[in-house]
């Protein structure tokens, strides 16, 4: 091996590490289109009339369990004006993840919005599924499609 060998492998290692970042897939609901080149979200899709679905992956720091993160997220949303429609519900994905789902409403400028939040916790990551839009548009087949997408979440 010559001295040049490590210099050649370094970029390849960096590329390999980048490819090892958090990945999540969901079944994009009917009527939604997946948006590419997202930075904050690992997945994001939206309907043409403004209902969005996203998955974000954050580091599990401080390290907490599902109760911790579910309460942290709920407290944050309540603090800024989100009102829960009911108690949080357990949700299970087809891939075997267990999480907690809460549905909220929020009124802004006289318009009522619906916002769904599901949180899943793994050893290293906190996976947060967000979905919502104007109340008039989160109806019909949209809610069922979102729920199906949540349950189809796979992380890696």
């Amino acid at each position, binding site marked *: 091996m010559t001295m040049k060998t490590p210099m050649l492998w370094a970029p390849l290692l960096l590329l390999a590490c980048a490819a090892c970042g958090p990945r999540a897939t969901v079944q994009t609901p009917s009527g939604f289109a997946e948006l590419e*080149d997202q930075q*904050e979200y690992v997945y994001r899709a*939206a309907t043409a009339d403004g209902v969005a679905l996203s998955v974000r992956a954050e580091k599990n720091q*401080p390290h907490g369990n599902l109760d911790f993160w579910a309460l942290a*997220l709920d407290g*944050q949303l*309540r*603090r800024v004006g989100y009102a829960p429609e009911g108690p949080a519900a357990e949700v299970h994905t087809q891939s075997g993840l267990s999480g907690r789902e809460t549905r909220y409403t929020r009124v802004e400028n006289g318009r009522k*919005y619906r916002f769904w*939040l599901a949180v899943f916790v793994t050893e290293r990551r906190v996976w947060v599924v967000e979905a919502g839009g104007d109340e008039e548009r989160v109806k019909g087949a949209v809610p069922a499609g979102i729920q199906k997408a949540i349950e189809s979440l796979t992380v890696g």
Partner: protein
Amino acid sequence: MRTLHLPSGRCPRALATLAFYLASLLATGCSAAMPPSASAAPPSPPPPSMAADGPPPAPAAASGSGYAPPSAPSERGAPTGPAPVAPGNAAGPRGAPSKGPPATTPRPTDKASATAASATAPAVAPLLIYTGDLSVQVEDGEVALTLDKVVELAESLGGYLAGRKDTSVQVRVPSARFRDAFSHLEKLGEVMHRSVTADDVSEQYSDLEVRLTNLRATRQRLQELLARAGGIPDVLQVERELERVAAEIEQIEGKMRFLRSRAAFSLLTVNVAVRPRTVAKVVETTPPPVQVDLPIDWLSRIGLGRLLNLRDR
């Protein structure tokens, strides 16, 4: 100044006498409102309460409410005779004049008694008109009942109803019972406001008395003159003057009756309002838990704001 034209040439002595009386009459008429001089007119009689009445009845004891209305008007000289002016016959300015002066008024023509009364009176007691206002709050549905109670109380004290509206009533009660009435009224509800005012009309009354005395003396002299008048023109002239004097006397008597009536019966106005309901507020004794702001930056990015901003990647 009025000028009299008398016929001349007949009965010079009678004419001279007539002229003298008329001249003195004119002089009296001009100075009717002025206090009489010592030589020209009889001394003014004292206010009615002093002149004819005995000591006024003792005022009722004050209630225990801590509020002390003024002393009963009778203590200050308001007329409190045994027969106060009856409500129905309380002769105001428009009321029918009663026949003859009331029992509480000294007879001005009885100069001797008036002079004696003046001489024995230690001081001129004021003639006061009392007016009281009271505002009370009662329970819902008790307004009309409370107004009825006010009227009943006034009547039980010898007073009468002076006026009534939906939420207020005016009654007149004998001034000697004013404090008593006020104390009772204060118990009808929660007192929100009370006030008592006294209007001193002594000077006005005294002036009227002086004018009345002078006019009566003038009338007496004119009647004497009439009896001695010879010719018809003289008789007519004196009769016209007598009529004028009589009209003035009646007017003054009416004013004096009005003042006496107002002083004898104090006006009490009672306003009744519904006590506002006390709304029991449900006070949360346990405050909501304090929201902890976790030091996790991405939490603040959760929500619709960022989610629906599709151009924000």
